[in-house]
């Protein structure tokens, strides 16, 4: 049912903004055979210029703020930020730290975000988030 309605495959650029790696390994787990999102044409790409979705992990430390912004600006419209993990959504366990620029809505206030809560979320939850992002992109005219 997904394949009928989607016009193109979804490419994701992964940005780690100071995460603990927990979410990152679950993203890789989602790509590898057990969960295998690559069968839907979803894949990680090496450049933000090719990407429809930015998968953001980590609470965005002060040092990463401008890098996250730059990556976001380089991505073509329409685009979605998939915030994987509680620490990108709210600061999570790192809230109140003196070295955070995040959470994401402070750094990218205008971005459309799909939140995947969990510390770390399970691969199933990440896939669910990707599908939500995908639906949004379709409705926003992605792939034309």
């Amino acid at each position: 049912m997904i394949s009928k309605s989607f016009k193109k495959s979804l490419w994701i650029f992964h940005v780690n903004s100071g995460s603990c790696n927990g979410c990152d390994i679950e993203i890789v787990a989602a790509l590898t055979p057990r969960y295998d999102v690559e069968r839907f044409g979803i894949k990680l790409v090496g450049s933000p210029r090719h990407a429809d979705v930015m998968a953001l992990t980590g609470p965005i430390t002060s040092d990463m703020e401008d890098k996250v912004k730059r990556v976001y600006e380089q991505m073509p419209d329409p685009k979605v930020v998939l915030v994987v993990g509680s620490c990108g959504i709210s600061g999570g366990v790192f809230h109140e730290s003196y070295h955070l620029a995040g959470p994401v809505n402070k750094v990218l206030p205008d971005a459309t975000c799909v939140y995947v809560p969990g510390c770390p979320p399970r691969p199933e939850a990440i896939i669910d988030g990707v599908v939500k992002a995908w639906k949004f992109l379709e409705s926003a005219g992605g792939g034309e």
Partner: protein
Amino acid sequence: MKYTVPIGPIHPALKEPIAINCTVSGEEITDVDVVASQNHRGIEWIGMNRNNPVQTIYIAERVCGICNFCHPACLIMAVEEIADIDVPERAQYIRVIQSELERIHSHLLWAGVAAHELGFDSLLHYTWMVREKVMDTLEIVNGNRVTKAIMMYGGVRRDIKDEHVPKIREMIKYYQDLFDKVAKLFLEDKTIKMRTRNIGILTKEDALKLQAVGPTVRASGVKKDVRQDTPYFAYPDFDVKAITPDMLTGKVVGDTYDRIVVRLLEVKQSVEIIEQALDEMPPGEIISEQKIPKLLAKIKRAEGEAIGRHEAPRGEDIHYVKLKSGFESLYTWKVRAPTYSNIMAWRPMLMHHQIADIPIVAASIDPCLSCTNRAVVTENNEEKWLTAEDLHNLSVKKTKEMMK
């Protein structure tokens, strides 16, 4: 013509953010500089200001999501020593099992990443598929795939119940049956051998001088392992021996290939330790103090300093803790993660190799590279950007050329 290839400086996938500046002449690397600092979440500050010691266990877990057992383990060992908290025997066995489960998942994860860096993606997918078995076991025992939340001062939070045991034994059998196949895939494949044999050598002398730890130092022939040297938890009951590559290949070269050998053998060793632990685990309590407020009060009264050491998958992890009586949080908390000791080894490893070797050699110390790396080549002051993808492509190209 000399170029500088800075990799990083933000290396987002690392616990300690890193910049590697490589000076290259043509394809050959002639100098390597490592700059650490930059990305930092203020974890120690949180532990010393915002949190009480029990909350700090959970922030210690988030120092690294991959080795999320080793950091709480070190912290807890240090605090237990200062506050004189007893740990029941059964809890010590459960801690050993958890620690070895973590090693299996971490080493398999690394093996997949290493295969990916060589451009051998089918092997990446295979290893990660195999790794799901230990992830399932972790989920059965802990209720979560990644972060375990198992450690507590004075014991562990969840027991290994009778119904868990057959599942864990099934996992043991699965890995024992699979070992020969995986070893063959990694160690006998001609291409992997060509790309890793004699690449990224760390001599025993350099390893000792740079105080490398874990599989990195053991691959250079140094028999160093905290579980063997100063056993903790229930490790004194296990005859853990530091693993060096000559146990399988008969010689020590100290190259990337040897680091693969050591990690594969350690997976086997971990499986054996878990098996023995299941056989010998005594019955009884799993925690000495059930009531958290009472525990906190005890820690609050305690005074002194201690060091917790644990053999994490990447090497020796050290936490220094100081408690002051009447102080709500930890008075001082200092974390020294294993990668911090190992990154200096990049310099001797990378010297005189090719740019295409950077990914696999950098990954060979297992610094949690998953990288959105950028690299820049300066050529007559004109900057040319090399992305992680370019680097990866260079590496894949080299593999293909060698296969011709």
